[in-house]
């Protein structure tokens, strides 16, 4: 499956969330990650994020698609980070 995760969390936890997501997904731009993962990986991410975050202050939104093909992506302006596997 393909997911996009966006977050708006207390500044105290921003770096923690970012560092955590960097291990699993591709950084797209500030507070946005995306990438292809398995169901269990998503469950793991949800579980870990809920430990890192504070439910009454933070917000994390997960958009998921069955495959990457089910999603269309367009970029206006500059692309902040390449997500290609060929570097």
């Amino acid at each position, binding site marked *: 499956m393909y997911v996009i995760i966006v977050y708006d969390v207390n500044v105290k936890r921003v770096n923690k969330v970012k560092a955590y997501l960097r291990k699993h997904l591709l950084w797209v731009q500030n507070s946005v990650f995306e990438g*292809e993962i398995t169901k269990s990986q998503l469950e793991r991410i949800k579980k870990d994020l809920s430990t890192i975050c504070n439910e009454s202050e933070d917000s994390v939104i997960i958009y998921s698609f069955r495959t990457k093909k089910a999603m269309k992506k367009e970029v206006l302006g500059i692309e902040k980070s390449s997500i290609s596997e*060929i570097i």
Partner: protein
Amino acid sequence: MTRKNYYILTDGILKRKENTLYFINKDGKRPLPIHSIYSIYAYSSLSISSQVVNLLSKEGIPIHFFNRYGFYSGSFYPRETLLSGDLVIKQAKHFIDNEKRLKLASDFVKGAIFNMKRVLSYYGLDNNMDTLLEDLKSCKKITEIMNVEGRARADYYKLLDEILPEGFRIGERTRRPPENMANALLSFGNSLLYSTIISEIYNTQLNPTISYLHEPFERRYSLALDISELFKPIIVDRLILYLIKKNMIDETDFEKDLNYSLLNENGKRKFVTEYDKRLKKTIKHRKIGRKVSYKRLIRLECYKLIKHLLGKEKYKPFISWW
């Protein structure tokens, strides 16, 4: 399986930070999510610290290194976690027992010839490879089997030359260094495939150093050489023909100074991009009842080999069915 191959073609440093990887060079730094990596192919000048190696080892991620010509130089094969003493013994038994070894060696060549035939017939080229398949049946020695393989490949390249544009004909197969563009592409592609197969073997209980068609001393991971015979036509050769036929690759992708005998960075980039697309391409596997990628087909071949080594289920080499 969603983990991906990463191919690094630009010079830089691979660093470990907060338990994930970063690729850093003059243009900036880019995090590479550690849980998204299956293997790394390093083509550029890449600096790596022992912390990176430790992390790769912990996560079971092999990294393959190529020199600046794109030739394979070696792999970091992480500490093995999938071990079965029982299987290693059986692998060795099948090597020591001459009849058993011949059977497997000849199967690899049989599969290779069938797959070459597939490529030829895809391009409408008539061939008499069936006589070689007949010759294979009467082989009593590994060297004889190797000889059939050599003849098959020579015939095959000669036939492919009929449909290749003039500048891209193979002619004689030359290796170190390759003497023309077609040979450069073949060498580059075969090294890449060899590494891909090493990664697949790593993810099984097979020991990569015990082989049947090739002598175990030929290369460190000689089993990968055996398996690569089956997949070269379908993965590498088809890709090369595609690149040439679609005019996707031309003289400007080669090192002019080296008589066009090596791919330049741009050429390498094109090649690995299309190679990776091909590995991800899926086809329906009837027996499993699911779509599998070309890359996964290599893993399935390892599984079939394991079943053969365990006895009972005779190995049938991979033959492309599409």
